[in-house]
């Protein structure tokens, strides 16, 4: 006599599609990955030109951190079009890879010091909007804090890593009651934010794991003034 769980397992396995792992398919997927990577490389010049247009409009002096060509995915045209809608943030030279956005949402890859300055290597993600579109850094008009039960997952359509500089007095905030905010109960707890030091942020690798959705807030000079570590569920 099978148990309920065994019977359910049987039904799930019978209901799932069979799909063998075909070597030829893997070759196709590898080729697609290569094609996308090369597309990023070949579009570098185009992106730099587009960025220059924005610089002209905004009166900015954009300087890449190392002066080398950047990899930029062509699927991120909103970077250039929407930045122009946030002119209030653009009166000072750009800092590191800051593109003029007031906010950014993504994942932290590394927090480190360089020349007495805290830097964060940041992987921007896109937030799915109600209409099925995607919003990313320059699109946000308010702090994009992803917390609690949400039907708006993020996707990562761009491999580019951005390096931002943190203000020495930047706020780093974590949620003390994360479990409660992710409860399936009808009443979700309000996040209780706790400030941590930048040293704690840098050393607390577990604070920004793969699933931590990080909202950054920039000051008008392009320095990160707030790092909010959140997590939707």
């Amino acid at each position, binding site marked *: 006599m099978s148990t309920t769980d065994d019977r359910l397992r049987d*039904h799930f396995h019978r209901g799932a599609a069979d799909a063998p*792992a075909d070597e030829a398919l893997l070759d196709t997927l590898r080729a697609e990955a290569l094609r996308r990577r090369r597309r990023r490389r070949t579009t570098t010049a185009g992106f730099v030109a587009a960025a220059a247009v924005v610089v002209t409009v905004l009166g900015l002096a954009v300087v890449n951190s190392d002066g080398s060509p950047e990899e930029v995915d062509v699927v991120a045209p909103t970077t250039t079009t929407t930045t122009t809608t946030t002119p209030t943030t653009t009166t000072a030279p750009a800092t590191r890879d800051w593109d003029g956005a007031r906010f950014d949402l993504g994942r932290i890859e590394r927090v480190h010091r360089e020349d007495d300055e805290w830097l964060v290597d940041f992987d921007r993600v896109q937030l799915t909007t109600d209409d099925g579109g995607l919003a990313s850094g320059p699109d946000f008009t308010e702090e994009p804090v992803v917390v609690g039960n949400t039907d708006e997952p993020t996707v990562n359509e761009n491999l580019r*890593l951005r390096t931002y500089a943190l203000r020495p007095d930047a706020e780093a905030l974590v949620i003390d009651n994360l479990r409660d905010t992710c409860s399936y109960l009808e009443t979700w707890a309000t996040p209780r934010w706790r400030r941590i030091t930048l040293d704690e942020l840098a050393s607390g690798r577990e604070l920004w794991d*793969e699933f931590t959705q990080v909202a950054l807030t920039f000051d008008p000079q392009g320095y990160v003034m707030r790092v909010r570590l959140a997590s939707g569920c």
Partner: protein
Amino acid sequence: MAVVPEDTADDEAVVVVFHREYPAMVGMASLLLRDRAAAEDVVQEAFVCLLLKWDRLRDPSKAGAYLRTTVLNVARGRLRRDRTAQRKLRPLRVVVDSTEDAALASTEHVRVMAAVDGLPRRQRECAVLRYYLDLSDGEIAEALGMAIGSVKSHLHRARAALEAALEER
């Protein structure tokens, strides 16, 4: 900036992960999307993402977990963008060993799969990860980015709904 090296395509680890994960991921996605072709699209997209990010995985042994999460995310996006998905449910594939039991088994299977389709998204995801992939509560929590307590709650509700489908006559 980290760039996937050209020779990543030859990385044996990729081949191992592909053979180990691809069939299961398509199976999982097909249960979530109820559309085999869409499931294959989603999983293939997730694999391309994995290949592009391969050298940036902090722990390559977690490629399977990364893949699961990516497939779930891409599948959700696909469902969201395709509001008509529910109208495109494919006929259920029913496999039975005995023609004598075929009608009964088919009926029960159809009921259970219909109940799966009717579950709220998170319950459905938890149920698929548990009953198809046999993941633990902790592994499901990691894949879905939610607390273990929430996983238990979703699973409890999902199991109750599916059990009712099993018991229907």
